[in-house]
């Protein structure tokens, strides 16, 4: 899909070629409209290993998924709880998300 900057000011996740791309499929998460369900999945608890394109929403604990590898500074949205967040590196070196108000 091509869209103009009238509708999308800037992609929240940069589309440079060095990032791995991911083909998303629905994983049983049905709490948002169908077209967006593949971008979210339930977190299975502390043993749930996140992929490079995933980060946990600190507000509602749903796993947010992207079509590209996530990096610090990327902006993502949690539609299930309506939060906007930025990807950061946590104390343990893993990617986390901080809510942006």
């Amino acid at each position, binding site marked *: *899909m*091509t*869209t*103009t*900057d*009238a*509708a*999308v*000011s*800037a*992609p*929240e*996740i940069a*589309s440079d070629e060095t990032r791995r791309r991911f083909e998303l499929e629905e994983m049983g998460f*049905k*709490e*948002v*409209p*169908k*077209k*967006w*369900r593949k*971008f979210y999945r339930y977190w299975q608890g502390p043993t749930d290993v996140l992929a490079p394109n995933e980060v946990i929403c*600190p*507000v*509602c604990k*749903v796993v947010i998924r*992207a*079509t590209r590898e996530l990096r610090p500074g*990327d*902006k*993502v*949205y*949690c*539609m*299930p*709880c*309506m*939060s*906007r967040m930025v990807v950061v590196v946590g104390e343990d070196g893993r990617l986390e998300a901080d*809510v942006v*108000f």
Partner: protein
Amino acid sequence: MTTVDVDDFDPHALTEQDFLDQVHSFQFWFDSVEGYLTDRPYGRPDATVEEPIDDARRDRLITSLCNYCVGETAALDGAAGLVQLAPDRNSKIFMATQVVDEARHLEVFLHRLRELGVGDPEREIERRAQPALVDFKGALLDLVAEGDWQAAVFAQNVILETMEYTVFRLHASTADAVTKDVLAGVIADERRHAGFGENDLGRALAIDPSGRVRLREIRTRLDAMVLGVFEAALADIGAPVEGHRQLASEYLDTVERLGLT
């Protein structure tokens, strides 16, 4: 005019305003609840089989559900009043969807009480309601009557809904099959309600941080009421000690993100 390539329907490519317009809309609500409430009369699929519940567990479950009904009634009355106070159309429309959610929660919990053999749920709720939760309901509705949007959203969508969200998830993890199904739909709704409260207040406090002083006072007055009630609910459902820690910690994380500690 420049163009950028974005993936079909990629939510992360939305502008902030487009995102807010989407998630606050009635259409978003409708297309969301369709995913998890279709073919679930009173929140449960017909195929779910009732499992045996011994008398003691049943009694504790009835107490929990009675108090959930008090909380849901508070949120139903509160959200209905907040529709008129909403500062913009997106908030007004979202709050109207919350009214519907809260009415459904009350209805499914009342229905579950009847399934558990409670002949007169209203009388049972009156008998088993924790006084602190009844007091909280009164305090919330006072804030609504005063026309105080921020304080009422904080009391309802942050204090009450954040704690309910944690308790319902913990309860669902140990509940009988039917109660678990009923709770699953409620939990999905609570995600929106708690998220709305945190983000609405977060945006307002980012613009005018002076509001934090007043909200901290409200927090001091009200959160202990609700915390005590839900700690008792966790005891009733047999949640492990870790569950009590999770309740306190998830709530504290929320108020910390809002700068209200």
